[in-house]
C-alpha cells in the first residue's frame, strides 16, 4: 500500500536525499582520484577527505551563494559541496587549463572566485586571517554575508589561530570558525600536541559562542551550522564549531600511517557518515534500494563525464607560464 506522506515529511526526505547525494559525490570523486593517482595520471600532494564528508556537506548547505568560504589543502569535499563543478575540480587534478585554477593550483589550491570559494590554502592556519579580512570587508560595506573558515585541529596550536579569534571577537566579525577535528595533524595525535584538547572550550575563552558537534552526523552538523549562522545573522560576531570527525584514509598519498592502529580506523568506520544517514533514512522509510541505486548511478555518470572531459581538456600553453603573476592590464 502506498502511504501518503505529509508535505513536511517529503521536504525532509528531499533534503536528506540531497545531503546523501552530496556526500556520495565527494566519496566517489575521491575514490576515483585514488585510482587515477595510482595510475600516475594525477600527481602532487593529495589529501583525502574520506570519512569527513558530513562536515563539508552539513556546513556548506547553510550558506547562501553570497557568503564566503575559506578552505584548506584537504578541500576536494569543500569545493564540491560549495558547488564548484566536479569537472573543473577534476580538470585541476589533471593540471588542465580548464581546471578551476588553470592547472596552477592542483589538489591543494582549488579556487572559484565566482562562488566566493577562497579555497585551498596549504599553509596550516594560513586561511584564518584571510577569512577575517573577507568578513571585515563585508562588515565595512554593510553586507549581510558571513564567512565560513574551515581548518584542521592542527591549526589550533598556531599563533595565527589565537590572533584571529581574538580579532574576530574584538571587532565582532561574522566569521564562522569551523575546526575539523579529525584527531590528527599528520601523525601527531591531538593529545600529543595540545595542552587542552577541548577545542570548543578554548574558543569560548575568546567570548564567542562555541559548540562541539558530532562531525560524523551530517544532520547534526547541518543543525549546528544553521544555528551558528542564524546567531551570526541576528547579531554580528564570530561563532566557533568544533566538528568531531575522523579521516579513514592516510594523511596524504605518501603516508604509511605508522602512528595509528588499523583497529582504531576500523572502529571509526562504524560511524561512517554515509552509512549513518542511509540507515536512518531506511529506518524512516525514506529510502529504498532502487533509489540508492539510482543515486549512485547518477553520481557515477557525473563522475565518468567529469573524468573524460577533464582528461580531454587542453593543457595551458607553456608560453603562458608567467601569466597571472601580476594582474594583466589592457
Amino acid at each position, binding site marked *: 500500500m502506498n502511504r501518503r506522506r505529509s508535505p513536511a515529511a517529503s521536504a525532509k526526505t528531499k533534503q536528506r536525499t540531497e545531503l546523501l547525494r552530496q556526500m556520495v559525490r565527494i566519496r566517489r570523486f575521491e575514490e576515483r582520484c585514488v585510482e587515477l593517482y595510482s595510475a600516475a595520471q594525477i600527481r602532487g600532494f593529495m589529501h583525502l577527505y574520506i570519512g569527513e564528508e558530513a562536515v563539508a556537506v552539513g556546513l556548506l548547505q547553510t550558506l547562501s551563494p553570497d557568503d*564566503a568560504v*575559506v578552505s584548506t589543502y584537504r578541500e576536494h569535499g569543500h569545493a564540491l559541496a560549495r558547488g564548484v563543478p566536479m569537472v573543473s575540480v577534476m580538470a585541476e587534478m589533471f593540471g588542465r587549463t580548464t*581546471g*578551476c*585554477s*588553470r*592547472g*596552477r*593550483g592542483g589538489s591543494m*589550491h582549488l*579556487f*572559484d*572566485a565566482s562562488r566566493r570559494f*577562497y579555497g*585551498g*590554502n596549504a*599553509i596550516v592556519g*594560513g586561511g*584564518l*586571517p*584571510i*577569512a*577575517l*579580512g*573577507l*568578513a*571585515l*570587508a*563585508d562588515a*565595512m*560595506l554593510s553586507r549581510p554575508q558571513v*564567512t565560513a573558515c574551515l581548518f584542521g585541529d592542527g591549526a589550533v596550536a598556531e*599563533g*595565527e589561530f589565537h*590572533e*584571529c579569534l*581574538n*580579532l574576530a571577537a*574584538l571587532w565582532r566579525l561574522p566569521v564562522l570558525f569551523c575546526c575539523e577535528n579529525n584527531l590528527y595533524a599528520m601523525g601527531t595525535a591531538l593529545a600529543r600536541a595540545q595542552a587542552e584538547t577541548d577545542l570548543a572550550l578554548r574558543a569560548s575563552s575568546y567570548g564567542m559562542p562555541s559548540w562541539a558537534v558530532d562531525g560524523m552526523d551530517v544532520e547534526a552538523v547541518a543543525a549546528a551550522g544553521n544555528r551558528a549562522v542564524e546567531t551570526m545573522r541576528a547579531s554580528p560576531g564570530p561563532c566557533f564549531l568544533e566538528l568531531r570527525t575522523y579521516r579513514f584514509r592516510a594523511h596524504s598519498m605518501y603516508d604509511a600511517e605508522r602512528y595509528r592502529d588499523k583497529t582504531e580506523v576500523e572502529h571509526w568506520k562504524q560511524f561512517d557518515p554515509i552509512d549513518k544517514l542511509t540507515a536512518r533514512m531506511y529506518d524512516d522509510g525514506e529510502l529504498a534500494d532502487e533509489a540508492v541505486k539510482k543515486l549512485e548511478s547518477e553520481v557515477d555518470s557525473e563522475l565518468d563525464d567529469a573524468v573524460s572531459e577533464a582528461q580531454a581538456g587542453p593543457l595551458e600553453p607553456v608560453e603562458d607560464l608567467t*601569466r*597571472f*603573476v*601580476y*594582474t*594583466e*592590464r589592457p
Partner: protein
Amino acid sequence: MTTTHTTYREAIREALREALRDDERVFLMGEDVGRYGGCFAVSLGLLEEFGPERIRDTPLSESAFVGAGIGAALAGMRPIVEIMTVNFSLLALDQILNNAATLLHMSGGQLGVPLVIRMTTGAGRQLAAQHSHSLEGWYAHIPGLRIIAPATLPDARGMLRPALECPDPVLMFEHGSLYNAAGELDEPAEPVDIDTAAIRRSGDDVSLITYGGTLPTTLTAAEQLAANNIQADVIDLRTLRPLDETTIVDSVRRTNHAVVIDEGWRSGSLSAEITARITEHAFYDLDAPVQRVCTAEVPMPYAKHLEDAALPQADDVVAAAQRAVG
C-alpha cells in the same frame, strides 16, 4: 601652482588623507595608527578626521591583520596596512609571501590582491639589530609583489595613489631617517609613476645607483665627486621590483662606470641583482668592475660609531666611485 613647506612624514600623511577622502573603500589598519597617531606620527590626526572604522588600531597580531588586509582586498576594499617596521613584518611573512604574492597565480588569475602595505625600514637611529635592518631586498625577490621606496618629498606625496590604483599587492618602504626630511613641495602634487626609476642628478662619468634612505647619502657623495671633477649620474630606483633595467643600463652605457649603493647586506642582495643585470646587459660598456657600497655584514650594532661604521657613508660612496673611475 604654489609650494608649501613640508616634511616627508607630512607628505605621506597628506597622501593618506587624500586617499581616504577620495575613495570610501580605502582604510588604514595597523598597530597604533589611530589613537597613538602612528609610531612615527605619520597618521597623526587621521583618526579624528576619519573615525575608528577607517583608521583602525589593531592588536599586536602582524600575521592576522596583514592577512585580514588581504582578505579585505579580495572582497572589494582598498586596505592600507601599516607594519611598524620591516623587522616585525617577518611575523607576517607567511601572509605576504604565501598569500598576497601567490593567490593570483595559484587561482589561475581569479584572485587579485589590491593591497598596500607600508612599513619603515633602515638604520641610523641607534636602535640596534631588531629595529634597524633593511630587508626590502628580500621582498624584492618575490614575484607577485611590487616594491616601492619613496626617497623624496614628491615621491612620499605621490606614490601612494598609483600604489592604490595597482591591482596587485604593493609594499611601500619608508626609511626611518627620511621622515624629518623637509623641503618645498608643489601644490597640487605632481603625479608620480611607480614604473620607472628617476635620475636625480645627471653626469657622464659614473652611475651611482641607489634608492630610499641612501639617496641623500649618495647625492652628498655626488657633490663631493663633482668638486673633484667627477660628474655622477644618480639613479633613484624608486621601484625595487620590477626593476627599471632600462634606466640603469642606459646610464651605465653612457658613463661606463657603476657603483651600487644599498643599505642591505651585500651577500645575496638587491645590489647583487643590480650588478648582475649590469653585467648581463652592459658588460662590454664597462671600463671597470662594478663597485658596491653596502652595510657591513653584521647585525646592526647599537653604539653610534659602530653603527656609522656599518652603514654606507658618503665617503664610502666617493671612494668607491673613485675606484671605479680609476
